[in-house]
């Protein structure tokens, strides 16, 4: 942190940028700010009732799994990046990411309170605390968050942001592709969009850090990245089977995992690992990720979103003049 080096406390000056990316990402994150309370959920109540009990159970479990990851990222992950920040503005961006993760974590509770009984909610949370694969993925990333290598911390963080969430994100997209739980899907899409910017930014800062390292160290970190990805992947496959075998969706989810693992690597500046044959996403899931603008999803239909609070005006010399 800048403070410790200079032994004086320094206020952050946003009029003097060392890396313009910090302001760019700050602006985008703040203008994308949203709250679950603003997303209507009531339409899903009827839809929820059409799911079989087992489908409801798996959905709740997937969501407590996501809640756990967002909780970790909000209270440990994003904050653990602050001491390693290269600029004071970067520190500020991490505080924004951290807060938004807490919003994400809370939004699953909004979904639960709309759809489920207190008893069911408590059981699902208990499941998340007892599921060995979910606990293992938490344990692996937490190990690096608490470790002493700033670059490894960023790798673990990017893999969480851009890979580990997707076994859970799959299910609301699957329901949405069958015209079920569409309000829930709207909310999850907001989270998915945020995660893209988080993964991009942390991955970018990782690459900036790598530039300052020796060739040998870069090789070490690269090998570590692929090893960690594979370690998480092995566990993720087991988690996926545990969660989805009963619904017969495991194979489809795996494709989605491969696809997102490749994107996580790209966010870190590395080449994709999984070949195209196994990383092609079911087209129904892909179109659920980008629902048609003229359906009832007003969020994606225009630039003025009803959920978004802050908005930036483009200055006039950046405007089209034809």
């Amino acid at each position, binding site marked *: 942190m800048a403070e410790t080096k200079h032994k004086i406390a320094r206020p952050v000056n946003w009029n003097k940028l060392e890396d313009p990316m910090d302001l760019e990402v700050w602006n985008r994150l703040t203008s994308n700010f949203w709250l679950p309370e603003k997303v209507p959920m009531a339409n899903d109540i009827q839809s929820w009732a059409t799911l079989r009990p087992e489908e409801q159970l798996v959905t709740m479990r997937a969501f407590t799994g996501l809640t756990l990851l967002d909780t970790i990222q909000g209270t440990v992950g994003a904050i653990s990046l602050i001491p390693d920040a290269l600029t004071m503005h970067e520190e500020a961006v991490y505080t924004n990411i951290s807060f938004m993760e807490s919003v994400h974590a809370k939004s699953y509770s909004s979904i639960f309170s709309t759809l489920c009984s207190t008893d069911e909610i408590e059981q699902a949370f208990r499941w998340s605390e007892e599921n060995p694969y979910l606990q293992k993925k938490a344990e692996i990333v937490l190990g690096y968050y608490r470790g002493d290598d700033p670059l490894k911390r960023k790798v673990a963080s990017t893999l969480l942001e851009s890979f580990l969430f997707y076994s859970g994100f799959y299910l609301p997209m699957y329901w949405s592709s069958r015209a079920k739980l569409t309000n829930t899907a709207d909310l999850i899409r907001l989270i998915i969009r945020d*995660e893209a910017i988080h993964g991009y930014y942390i991955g970018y800062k990782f690459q900036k850090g790598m530039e300052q390292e020796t060739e040998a160290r870069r090789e070490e970190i690269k090998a570590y990245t692929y090893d960690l990805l594979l370690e998480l992947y092995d566990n993720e496959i087991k988690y996926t089977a545990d969660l989805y075998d009963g619904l017969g969706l495991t194979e489809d989810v795996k494709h989605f995992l491969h696809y997102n693992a490749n994107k996580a690597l790209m*966010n870190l500046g590395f080449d994709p690992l999984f070949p*195209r044959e196994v990383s092609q996403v079911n087209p129904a899931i892909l179109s659920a990720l*980008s629902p048609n603008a003229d359906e009832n999803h007003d969020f994606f239909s225009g630039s003025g979103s009803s959920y978004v609070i802050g*908005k*930036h005006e*483009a200055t006039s010399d*950046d405007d089209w003049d*034809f």
Partner: protein
Amino acid sequence: MFEIAYFSNVSENTKRFVDKLGVQHHRIPVMASETPLMMSEPYVLIVPTYGGGDDATSVPKQVIRFLNQQQNRDFIRGVIAAGNTNFGDKYCRAGEIVAMKCHVPLIHRFELLGTPYDVEVVHKKMETLWNQH
């Protein structure tokens, strides 16, 4: 083959994709203080999307400034967009906007650094476009 003009922010995802293409290329500068790029041969534009869901800022301002030059508009023959499907309906939106405003086809969309498959497809499509002109 047409040349390529592209924009890539300091994250340089698009730059790394362009490097893999092996086609003559020119970069639109990131900083307004740098010499602006002027194209004098027909080219295909590669543009990453930056709106984060907002149409007004989907096309990077550097690309808007570049296309505000009549000469650059005269030589554009097609557009390729980069993005991330996490942005839903706004996936590669910048490509749609440029295609519409410049009346050129959007020939391909890809994510982040692009895959070997994207490289292959872009080669094929650039060739088709070349043969049509």
